C-alpha cells in the first residue's frame, strides 16, 4: 500500500523532509502526527493519510486523517487514535478529523476512496503512517 500511496501525495513521512519554514497548519500537524504514530499507532491500522480540509482554506482549523487497516470497529479505532494524536493536536492547534475507511486492500483503492470522500485530489496529502514502510530495512 505504501508504494501505491506514495505516487499520489505531496509528502510522505518516510522519505521526504517536511518544510520547516512556511509550513501550513496541516503540514505541521502531519509532521507531529507522524512522530506520534511511529510508536503509538493502533495495531489494526496499516496506513494513515492526512489531507488539508479545503483547497481554498489556507488556515483551516482542521484536517482530514483517512485511516486504512484491518479494524472492524470504526469507533474503536477513532478512540485509540484520539489518545495517540492528542499531543500532536495540542502542539499544532489543528484538529485531526479521523475517517476510518473500511474494506481497503490496495493503495489505488485507498486513493479512490479518499478522492471520493474528501472531494479533493489527494496529491497534496501526507502519508503520516504506513505499516509496510515502517517495517522496511
Amino acid at each position, binding site marked *: 500500500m505504501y508504494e501505491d500511496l506514495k505516487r499520489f501525495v505531496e509528502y510522505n513521512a518516510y522519505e521526504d523532509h517536511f518544510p520547516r519554514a512556511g509550513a501550513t497548519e496541516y503540514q505541521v500537524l502531519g509532521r507531529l502526527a507522524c512522530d506520534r504514530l511511529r510508536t503509538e499507532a493502533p495495531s489494526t491500522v496499516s496506513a494513515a493519510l492526512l489531507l488539508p480540509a479545503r483547497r481554498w482554506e489556507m488556515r483551516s482549523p482542521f484536517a482530514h486523517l483517512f485511516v486504512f487497516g484491518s479494524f472492524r470497529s*470504526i469507533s474503536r479505532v477513532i*478512540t485509540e487514535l484520539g489518545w495517540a494524536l492528542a499531543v500532536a493536536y495540542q502542539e499544532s492547534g489543528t484538529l485531526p478529523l479521523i475517517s476510518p475507511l473500511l474494506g481497503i486492500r490496495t493503495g489505488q483503492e485507498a486513493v479512490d476512496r479518499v478522492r471520493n470522500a474528501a472531494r479533493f485530489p489527494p496529491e497534496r496529502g501526507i502519508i503520516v503512517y504506513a505499516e509496510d514502510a515502517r517495517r522496511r530495512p
Partner: protein
Amino acid sequence: MSLNEAYREIAIRALDAAHAALAARRQEKATFLAYHAFESLGGALSATKAQPYPLKHQRKLNQFVALAQPYKFGRAVAALAITLASLRNRCLYPEEHPGGVVTVPKDVVPESLARSLLSRVGGIARSLSPYI
C-alpha cells in the same frame, strides 16, 4: 447569570440528557449530547477567560484545547476533542461503504463506548469546575 454560568448550565443539562438517552438505549444520541456538553464546557472556560467563543465547531474545539493546555487535564481534553469531533456526524447520519453496505449511527457507537465517553466528559466537567 453570567456567560460562563450559562455555558456550564448548558453542559450539565446536556450531560443529564445524555444519561437519559443512554438509559433509553439511544447510545448515538447520548454520544452526540456528550459532544454538545463537551463543547459547552469549552464555552464556559472561554467565557471565564474573557475570550470570545467562535461559531464554527472545529474552531470552538481548537480554542478549548488551547485554553485547557496548561492544566493537567489538557491532554485528556485534546484526546476527547479528536474522538468526539470524529464521531459527531457519525452520530447523526448514515454512512455508505463499498459494496453498498450502509452503517447507521446506532451501530457505529456501541453502548459501552457511549458510557465511556460520557464518563470522560463528566470527568472533564469536574476537573474544570474550580476554574469556571
